[in-house]
């Protein structure tokens, strides 16, 4: 893969459309924040640049367009081809879209795909079908919708966190310009600090209800209703992971709107 060294790529079949692609379409073989490998109906011209429309078909990630450049292209059997392209973001919106995509895919990759497929078929019984080989997206829910991953933009500074023994949870402190906000994560059973001191600016919080970390907590302490919260910085860098019950306001003031 052409991605930056150490960058995670995801083996996923995402539909891609572009006027510049043979047959105006392709399917990704793998993708990362900076590059993708694409299967197309014919080889691509080396060095050519094109605008790719990425169609994810999932609730937690909106479709978007991103410019890319062909770096290599190898013919395959029956006229098809595999090509390596590098994303060439032209604006901050392009960079933001690619970073968000990488974060969503990274969080989802930690969930057991089989669990996700089973959960999706349980949610949407009339449309359920036998589990498919990876990569495969869960069937679209019809009436009873459930987001397996929620992306909440934050744009705050992480001031710190502390364990509150008597309340059996973790309090996380944010600063937004001059205002300080706190969130309380009750019954926190797992906290991973990815050296957040080096990356204090939080761009988003990602929430999932199924992940490797949640399964690990369930295996050790049991129970249900766990959530995996991930605070991320620029370039989808994880800075703080928490597995706990649902987040609550931490201020002493009584809640007005909850």
């Amino acid at each position, binding site marked *: 893969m052409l991605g930056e060294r150490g960058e995670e790529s995801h083996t996923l079949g995402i539909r891609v459309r572009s006027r510049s692609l043979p047959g105006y379409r392709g399917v990704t073989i793998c993708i990362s924040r900076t590059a993708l490998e694409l299967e197309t109906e014919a080889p691509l011209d080396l060095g050519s640049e094109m605008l790719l429309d990425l169609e994810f078909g999932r609730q937690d*990630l*909106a479709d978007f367009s991103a410019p890319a450049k062909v770096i290599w292209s190898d013919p395959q059997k029956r006229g098809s081809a595999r090509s390596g392209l590098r994303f060439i973001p032209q604006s901050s919106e392009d960079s933001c879209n690619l970073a968000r995509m990488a974060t969503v895919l990274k969080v989802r990759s930690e969930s057991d795909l089989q669990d996700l497929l089973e959960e999706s078929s349980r949610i949407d019984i009339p449309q359920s079908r036998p589990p498919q080989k990876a990569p495969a997206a869960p069937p679209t829910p019809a009436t009873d919708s459930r987001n397996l991953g*929620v992306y*909440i933009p*934050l744009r705050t500074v992480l001031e710190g966190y502390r364990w509150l023994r008597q309340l059996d949870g973790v309090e996380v402190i944010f600063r937004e310009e001059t205002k300080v*906000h*706190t969130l309380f994560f009750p019954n926190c059973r797992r906290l991973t600090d990815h050296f957040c001191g080096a990356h204090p600016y939080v761009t988003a919080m990602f929430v999932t209800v199924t992940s490797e970390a949640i399964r690990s907590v369930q295996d050790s302490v049991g129970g249900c209703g766990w959530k995996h919260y991930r605070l991320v910085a620029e370039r989808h860098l994880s800075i703080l992971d928490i597995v706990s019950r649902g*987040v609550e*306001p931490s201020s002493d003031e009584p809640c007005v709107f*909850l």
Partner: protein
Amino acid sequence: MAHQIKELIRALFQAAWADDEVSPAEVEALMRVLRQLGVPFDEIICLLDRNLVERPRGLPVPLDQVFGERHSRMQALQTLMTVCFAEGVLQPQEVGYIEGLVTRVGVTSDELEMLRRNATGRP
């Protein structure tokens, strides 16, 4: 007043889920609107956490009963349409949802057009 805002917030999430999915643009619109309503940061995060993982249960909020005055009903409807139009276009389910609200609140076609223009920022 707090009761009205709480009911409006409930309606906002119903509007966001009208097409069975909540897109990133709709999340951004929800956060903007909640801030404008004066909801504190920590409560906003908790509301999103509780209402975006799973579609909230309950019957549609009866705007006409929650907001007694026509002016406040129209303001509430404007707020809901801001979320529905977050992506710039309406999905069929969102059209149905708005039609239901419009019928309840009693809105003329001119008023609806004004609400649409305000929500999209386009003539």
